[in-house]
């Protein structure tokens, strides 16, 4: 495969070539070796623990909200608590789960391996980005304890500038969170440009790398805008700066432009990594290279580009001119085209494959339905006259949860199951995995399908109480939410149990042809014993193939 190369570190390999290196989990011990680690895999695990914790927290907020909505009148929390809780649910889920989850956990873990590198380009910045992320979480959750914010995750001015709540701290928390995202994004971009192993040209990179690359570019261009906008809101709120607040001559619509200029591309920050995960899984389990590598790779960049020209479709009823509305409506359709290219390519990849059906594949099937339906309803809400009726109703809530939960969360779960053996060297119980996957899907559909109908019927979002005619759909939705919660919890338990009692996984339990499965499971501290030389395209690696080749030669 390649020639042995001396480590970049001056000290010689302590174990000597040929001896088995201890894996990254055992390479060093002690709390210090974890908290101050510069190993991308350990940082990924630290992110893993934190992000799953925040997902649980956001999920609990969601369940409280849904339970409150079981009855039309107040059930068990008051209006003020409800408003603060949906704000915190949004903030936690968007900035502490959806945006960081896949890139910081699975991206961090797999990207350097996929590039054939020992680590990311800036290991110290990687560690710092984790702590900055943690700091932002502390500020955001602390702000909630210190009076909270009841503005919703959109922080629309002038409500946010007049609300007597901790809006300033929320703004600062999200600003800090953005710094962490940007650090990770820069690290990924630089690593992809500079650390590719010998022979790994751009068209041999795994599709997950392309997806992370596209994501990082969006983060780099969009996140500073959001950070600055929220700092300006905080200044308006604290000092009456007067940029957005009409009482001081500001323009509240200007804020919406700036906010959505970030937050619409942010949707692609959340789903693009999922596309990467899905591409890897489809190729691995169908034992096929992608039907069209370039279609998937370039459509990631296409989405990253077009995503910046669609923000206006959030503002059709906010006083946008008819011309602007027309332009934004049309541009929004292009994103769906790029996504459709991906979807068709995945399905085409299955064709003629040799598909082993496992938990990640079942998540892929759910993803297919939820994402396509969510995406198509996205085109529906970009259709101007229909959006006038749907805007700010539960239809929109259902639509973005189909993308965010149906797309990103199922993608996250698929990734968690797919790379589990690589990360921990164990196998989880496949039957429980399939069962929890079914529970998650059914729970999801019951939660969010009724919300489309609620939106059609006219129920606005962020409603603490509602007219009685909307009740039974809300009851369905709440029941679904609890089932979804139970399903997620069981999936988590299944993986935790497997950490200790799972069967040992070989280096390549799925028989995948992707490059990262060539390393040991779990990988050693520096990923590779020898610097790899990559001479094939992304999905033509197969350990069994190598072995077979060796054996054939020996005979």
């Amino acid at each position, binding site marked *: 495969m390649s020639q042995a190369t001396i480590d970049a570190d001056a000290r010689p390999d302590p174990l000597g070539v040929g001896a088995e290196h201890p894996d990254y989990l055992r390479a060093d011990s002690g709390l210090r070796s974890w908290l101050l680690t510069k190993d991308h895999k350990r940082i990924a695990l630290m992110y893993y623990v934190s992000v799953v914790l925040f997902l649980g927290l956001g999920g609990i907020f969601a369940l409280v909200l849904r339970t409150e909505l079981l009855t039309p009148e107040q059930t068990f929390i*008051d*209006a*003020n608590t409800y*408003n603060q809780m949906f704000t915190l649910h949004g903030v936690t889920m968007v900035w502490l789960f959806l945006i960081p989850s896949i890139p910081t956990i699975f991206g961090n873990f797999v990207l350097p391996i996929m590039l054939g590198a020992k680590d990311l380009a800036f290991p110290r910045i990687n560690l710092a980005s984790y702590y900055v992320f943690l700091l932002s979480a502390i500020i955001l959750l602390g702000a909630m304890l210190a009076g909270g914010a*009841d*503005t*919703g995750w959109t922080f*629309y001015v*002038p409500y946010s500038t*007049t609300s007597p709540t901790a809006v300033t701290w929320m703004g600062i928390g999200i600003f800090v969170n953005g710094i962490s995202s940007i650090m990770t994004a820069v690290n990924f971009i630089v690593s992809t440009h500079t650390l590719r192993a010998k022979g790994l040209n751009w068209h041999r990179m795994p599709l997950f790398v392309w997806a992370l690359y596209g994501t990082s570019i969006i983060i780099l261009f969009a996140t500073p805008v959001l950070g600055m906008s929220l700092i300006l809101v905080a200044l308006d709120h604290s000092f009456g700066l007067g940029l957005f607040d*009409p009482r001081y001559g500001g323009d509240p*619509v200007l804020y919406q432009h700036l906010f959505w200029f970030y937050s619409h591309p942010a949707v692609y920050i959340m789903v693009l990594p999922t596309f990467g995960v899905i591409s890897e899984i489809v190729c691995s389990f169908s034992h096929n*290279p992608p*039907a*069209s590598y370039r*279609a998937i790779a370039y459509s990631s960049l296409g989405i990253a580009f077009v995503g910046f020209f669609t923000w206006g479709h959030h503002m059709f*009823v906010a006083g946008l001119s*008819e011309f602007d*509305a027309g332009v934004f*409506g049309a541009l929004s359709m292009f994103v*769906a*085209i790029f996504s459709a290219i991906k*979807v068709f*390519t*995945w*399905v*085409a990849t*299955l*064709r*003629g*494959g*040799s*598909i082993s059906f496992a938990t990640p594949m079942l998540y892929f*099937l759910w993803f*297919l*339905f939820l994402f*396509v339906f969510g995406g*198509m309803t996205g*085109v*529906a809400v*970009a*259709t*101007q*006259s*229909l*959006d*006038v*009726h749907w*805007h*700010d109703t539960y239809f929109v809530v259902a639509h973005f949860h189909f993308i965010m939960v149906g797309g990103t969360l199922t993608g996250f779960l698929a990734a968690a199951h797919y790379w589990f053996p690589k990360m921990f060297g164990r196998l989880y119980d496949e039957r429980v995995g399939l069962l929890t996957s079914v529970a998650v899907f059914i729970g999801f559909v019951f939660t969010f399908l009724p919300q489309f*109908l609620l939106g*059609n*019927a*006219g129920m*606005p*979002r962020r*409603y*603490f*109480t509602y007219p009685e005619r909307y009740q039974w759909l809300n009851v369905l939705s709440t029941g679904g939410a609890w089932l979804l919660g139970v399903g997620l919890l069981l999936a988590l338990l299944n993986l935790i149990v497997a950490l200790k009692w799972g069967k040992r996984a070989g280096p390549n339990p799925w028989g995948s042809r992707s490059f990262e499965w060539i390393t040991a499971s779990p990988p050693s501290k520096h990923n590779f014993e020898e610097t790899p030389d990559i001479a094939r395209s992304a999905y033509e690696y197969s350990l069994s*193939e190598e072995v077979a080749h060796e054996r054939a030669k020996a005979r």
Partner: protein
Amino acid sequence: MNELLRTILFLPRQASTIADDIDKLHYFVIIATMGGALLVTLVGGFFLFRYRRTAVQKDPSRRVLGATHAIWLEAVVVVALFGMFISWWVIGFWQFMAIRVPPENALEIYVTGKQWMWKFAYPQGASTISTLYVPAGRPVKLILTSRDVIHSFYVPDFRLKQDALPGRLSTLWFEVKEPGRYDILCTEYCGVSHSTMWGEVIALPPEEYERWLQGEAPGPDVAGPVDLRPSAVLDYAPAEPVSMVRQGELAAAQHGCLRCHTLDGTPHLGPTWAGLYGTTIPLEGGGNTRVDEAYITESMMDPLARIHAGYQRIMPSYLGQIRPAETSAIIELMKSLRDVRPKPGAEAPWGTVDVPETREGRQ
């Protein structure tokens, strides 16, 4: 067909002239969306089954089918899909222009959003709170603004919505097909009572609308079903005499008082009316006052003059909005509640309710 799809999709009545057309596009879009998602999933599921791994297939040297095949198929499907999206866009944009450009002869009514009520002002001089009277069968143009934060004026039955922004004017127009009542909801989150910022459109036959403008109460025949809140009965001539307390309840409901004040002692945005009359309350900025007819009337007309300590400065003035008879009816209602004890130990959303000392010893 229209009725069937409308019922399946839970769409409300098609009360405005543009609602039917918008719903037709809605059906097209939703059927295509649902069909597309199902089709892709079924094809995916079929492939998972059809090409499942078998012992024979485990030969690792197998290669994929020609990828160019897929690319041609994809190109065709993508172009077709794009064509469909563009057709949605063309129809949707055309309808959007129709929604946004009012006819020349439209009646103009001014709308102001305010936490948490809608105020309507007619060029002829009338003004109402939360109830918008319009003639059926004639185009009406609303000129919207807001006094505080962003609100959004939404009538599901009309398929129409428009944000009301502070410091800006935006417009909305519609033509109601039939006389009747239609709900108004606020869809832009605007604070703690966002979900109760309700109102109603009452579409009158044109001649009755003219009579209403001249100050006559509209006839009872316009009453259609509305399940949101008690109807504004005071505007109609009651068949039997109604007690003053009951009139007070109706007036309080109609003018939106009960969105902030409660009658049973439950803490809310404003002081509860239960046990309030006749007590002495602390005022913001120091001092006390006795809650009597004078203070209540002053609070309705100039609410910010003397505010009950511990409550936000959020009450709007009802000067010119509320008729003298309604003022007295509301005071009578409060008098009737003087012996209702507030729930003990409860907290208002904005802080603890100050229970005045003078209330001690009273049951």
